[in-house]
């Protein structure tokens, strides 16, 4: 009996998790008439018209390119800085560690609206609105708490004797960090990279505010603003959404173990 309940629950949970996305994907393969038919058509005709239209008329590939550039750069720089800071917080003797970690946690909770206006003004005065760095740098700031949190917890797990042994061998601090610690914490680095990438790829609020020129906009902004005064192109929106989500779904399926480990790093260590 218990077993049956268990299987049913599992099935329902999986089904509900995947249904909305499957439906949208289904929609991206329909003709315009099928999309707006009442009642809805269940089996699509399998046309790629929506994708074609999204690419040709709605600049879908430009959005993808921008998202890749922004998310990729953010991930690279955030991980780099997180390695530095995470290591320092985890292993080195530093005063006020608690305060620093606490304030990082606080930063991750800042409501976007509270910093949006001033950040916008700063970027405006630097002339960095509608530029890649204008979005990447705030993103780095926003994802640092996440990166540092994960990397610190992974660094903490490594045996304490490592540094002492390295010290005995006369390694400099930098060498210790990059030649010994990082390779050993590689899983953590990898996990943090995935999580940061997902965050940067999905971010909407700042992308909406900072990138107003179409040639710089990222996927989420593009998808949110597909609607024009005269058209609500559900097919193209579904197609663009699929394109925006498929890479992430792949990441999740391949790396689900790591992701789970990374997300619960805070919980376990706490």
């Amino acid at each position: 009996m218990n077993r049956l309940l268990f299987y049913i629950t599992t099935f329902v949970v999986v089904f509900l998790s995947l249904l909305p996305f499957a439906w949208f994907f289904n929609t991206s393969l329909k003709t315009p008439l099928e999309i707006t038919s009442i009642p809805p058509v269940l089996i699509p005709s399998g046309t790629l018209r929506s994708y074609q239209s999204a690419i040709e008329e709605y600049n879908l590939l430009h959005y993808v390119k921008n998202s890749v550039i922004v998310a990729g750069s953010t991930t690279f720089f955030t991980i780099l800085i997180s390695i530095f800071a995470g290591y320092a917080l985890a292993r080195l003797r530093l005063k006020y560690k608690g305060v620093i970690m606490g304030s990082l946690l606080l930063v991750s909770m800042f409501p976007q609206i509270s910093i949006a206006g001033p950040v916008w003004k700063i970027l405006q005065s630097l002339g960095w609105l509608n530029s890649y760095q204008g979005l990447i740098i705030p993103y780095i700031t926003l994802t640092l708490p996440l990166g540092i949190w994960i990397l610190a917890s992974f660094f903490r797990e490594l045996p304490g004797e490592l540094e002492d042994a390295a010290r005995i061998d006369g390694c400099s601090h930098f060498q210790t960090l990059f030649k010994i610690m990082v390779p050993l914490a590689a899983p953590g680095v990898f996990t943090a990279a995935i999580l940061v990438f997902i965050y940067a790829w999905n971010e909407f609020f700042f992308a909406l505010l900072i990138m107003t020129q179409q040639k710089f906009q990222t996927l989420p902004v593009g998808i949110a603003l597909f609607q024009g005064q005269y058209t609500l192109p559900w097919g193209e929106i579904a197609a663009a959404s699929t394109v925006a989500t498929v890479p992430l779904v792949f990441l999740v399926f391949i790396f689900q173990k790591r992701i789970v480990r990374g997300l619960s790093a805070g919980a376990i260590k706490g």
Partner: protein
Amino acid sequence: MNHVSFFSQMKLSLLTREKIFAIALITPCFLLVATLAFYPILYSFYLSLHKIILGLPSLGQPFIGLENFRELLSDKVAIHSLINTFIFVFSSTFLEIFFGLVIALVLNKHFRGRGMVRAAILVPWAIPTVVSSQMWRFIFNDNYGLLNYIVFGSVTSSYTAWLAHPVSAFSAIVAADVWKTSSFAGLLILAGLQTIPDELYEAARIDGASAWQQFRKITLPLIKPALLIALLFRTMDAFRVFDLVFVMTQGGPADSTNVLQFYGYKKIFAEGLMGYGSTISVLVFLIIFIVAIFYIKVIGTRLFQEKG
């Protein structure tokens, strides 16, 4: 040879050098966070004390003290959006923890294909919020929405406009949010579940405890920290809801889904009332700050203590 003499002047202990190194490592992070996170918060405070209307630059930016805050107290729309936000936070967080618990209990067991199931449950979390919002907007559509089809089948005359009524529109937003983030809550709780040693359950079973009793007496108390952490993260995120409202309802109908962050956005960026809008953003920040402090006190400072 130079370096040898250089070193002769240095009597730095390992400890000091390490401190310097540590400070050097922290510096980039510190700089970024200070400029783009802490400074903006302070600047928001500063802006909220002025009257700033971007559309009328001729009026300048006079200092008006707490006038904006006084106006905020009597702003019915702001109060309404505050209430909306609180209701959203409570209902979505409660549901997410509940479903998260279910998910965690399911995933805790070892079974074949657990990896696949875990991945499937993570998909909602990985999807961009904007995509999720468009998806749900489409599902709730009053003509070709999937929900109408599931509930009413082909009886198209009964199709409901879910997003047209204040209560159902609000529920729709909560539903979309719960769908998206229950798995995240589930993962956090799962981490807690996995720290419970099996022997405890063994012992309880030998003593004749039922599954429900085991749950109540063993599981719940031991996952309390994980539950609280999940609660903390979800509450913070729920207060900041924006994408869902922007894409699904734009605050309507009749402001029923107008939440604080969306209202602040409209004030600052759509209406150009930067002074007053900053007041709202300060309010949101204070609320989150207070809630965060409260949670952290409850969870304890274990999280921040250094290890070894």
